[in-house]
């Protein structure tokens, strides 16, 4: 019998410390979780409950699955006591993936903030996997301090990929930092793509989403080309429990990525 509430065991292969409060968990689920970039899973920390997370690894990597997670509360706090060899539960994938077919032939302008780079990494890896299909890929990423930058090594490697343009900023630099200083919108003074023909993809904390969206609209991106990862409370992930209601949507099934066009009439879409 198919029980959508049942998690399957997933062993932790490795825990990578990204920043003092963000870790990447490399998991090996007992059964394949065939996710596509943008979809999420429900991760169970046995005895502590579940929380939704977006895989940050490539959808073309089927052997293991990575999630990059920030410690913010109860479930994530418990997760951070887990180490390689421990067993978690996982169910999914849920929600709608990024509509990559609509991205074909267009420039893609990705803006991430903090741990919001996690789902964007899955997208980025899916795009570079078939990079010829798309125009240029721009990645703009902001973190609070140089210490809070995730995927430091990978970012350096990605910059070398032909057709990829990366720019980084931190809100404030206390140590050595060669890139820009300022909130992430400081990377958006000039947007080098043809905004009417490009797509923008954003994920980050609500306040950042709000200002980035404002800037993208100002720059002339059409609302239906701005893809936003919406964070809501979730319980089931299945479109049944009601918790993730955002205006007329259930973000777990209609999202988690929605376009500005879809949410623009919702009162305060960003918390």
């Amino acid at each position, binding site marked *: 019998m198919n029980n959508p509430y*049942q998690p399957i065991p997933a062993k932790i292969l490795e825990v990578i410390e990204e920043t003092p409060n963000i870790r990447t968990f490399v998991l090996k689920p007992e059964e394949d979780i065939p996710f596509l970039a943008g979809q999420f899973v429900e991760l169970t920390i046995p*005895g502590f*409950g579940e929380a939704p997370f977006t895989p940050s690894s490539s959808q073309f990597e089927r052997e293991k699955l990575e999630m990059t997670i920030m410690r913010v*509360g109860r479930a994530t706090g418990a997760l951070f006591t887990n180490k390689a060899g421990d067993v978690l539960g996982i169910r999914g994938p849920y929600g709608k993936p990024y509509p990559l077919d609509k991205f074909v032939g267009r420039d893609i302008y990705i803006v991430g903030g903090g741990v919001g780079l996690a789902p964007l990494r899955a997208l980025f890896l899916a795009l570079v996997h078939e990079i010829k299909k798309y125009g240029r890929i721009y990645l703009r990423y902001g973190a609070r301090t140089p210490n809070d930058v995730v995927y430091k090594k990978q970012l350096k490697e990605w910059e070398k990929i032909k057709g990829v343009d990366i720019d980084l900023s931190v809100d404030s630099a206390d140590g050595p930092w060669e890139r820009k200083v300022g909130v992430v919108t400081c990377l958006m003074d000039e947007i080098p793509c043809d905004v009417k023909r490009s797509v923008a993809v954003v994920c980050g904390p609500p306040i950042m989403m709000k200002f980035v969206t404002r800037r993208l609209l100002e720059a002339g991106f059409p609302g239906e080309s701005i893809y936003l990862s919406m964070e*809501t409370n979730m319980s*089931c992930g299945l*479109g049944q429990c009601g918790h993730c209601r955002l205006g007329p949507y259930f973000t777990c099934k209609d999202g988690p990525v929605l376009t500005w066009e879809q949410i623009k009439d919702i*009162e305060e879409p960003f918390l």
Partner: protein
Amino acid sequence: MIYFLPNERREKWVARLAGEFNLFLPVQIEGKIHWQKYDKGNFAIDQLALSEIRAAEPIKAFLYRPREVVATFPKPIDPAQEMSALLFGVKGCDLRGLDVHRKMFLEGEFRDPFYTRRLENTILVAADCPMPRESCFCNLVGLNPFVNRGVDLSITTFDDGWVIEAVSDRGEKLANSAKDLFVPAGEHHRARREEQRQKALGILEAQNSKKWNPELSRAIAEKTSDRSFWKKAGEDCVECFGCLMTCPTCFCFLLYDQAKAKTGADVNQFERTKVWDACYMAMYARVGGGANPRPEFVQRFINRFHCKFMHFMNQHGFYACSGCGRCFTACMGKIDIRNILGQL
């Protein structure tokens, strides 16, 4: 097919059904109607409140349990096989709850296997409401005080017996197995039934004579930003959540896990329970780290109207409200949604 069951044979039929199924029926207890299990004639047939309005408890709990273990880890569980239940005397409004839950639990991408199995295993016998009460407004949400779809049998009560119509194949089978008790009914029974049904409708029309805005969902959308309207409408709410817990259509739930043991070998084993939840609760929509999209009660109050009367109508073509009146019957502040909706 339509049949007639004379008064003196009713008890025999009901007792026979109780031998075959877990039989639940509405009984009047201290002025209120409650679902009771029929066990070896633990009450007389005349105590049966079949001609009354819906019971205090919604039938939702029979199918969608207030709490239920839906998963165990790491070893999975299967939904238990239970003896078939027969709900004897469901009302027109009770079915709206099933329609809402079908949409939420069965017709999306993921099916709830527990709900599926219970629904398959539950036989529904409806009974008309010849005398709607003041709290009833099924006619305003597109329903009738009688049933001719979505059940197995439909009963209309009269002084001398019951007119019974088989509405489904399963109902036809049930009727066939009672052939020795049922009498085939004819046109004049249909006419009597029709007359009684029209009378009940007339009562509802008279007491709910003020019609709602025909574009109610749009009216709600337009009224949303008028916070003083909603604040006033909800000002007597004490946040007991009685309205939502007693509502037959509310579907919200929460999944929560309990560890089998705090330490030792079983520490990784847990049980996952699905419990009814309520969108009025302050923590309902809170996200990780503490941000809350609906921190004020008035926002949560509006959310309930959005869910039931706007989004559900726009997406599924009917209100997620049955007109049963349980919410304001339960309400300590006597907040009557009919008054609120009537002003829009």
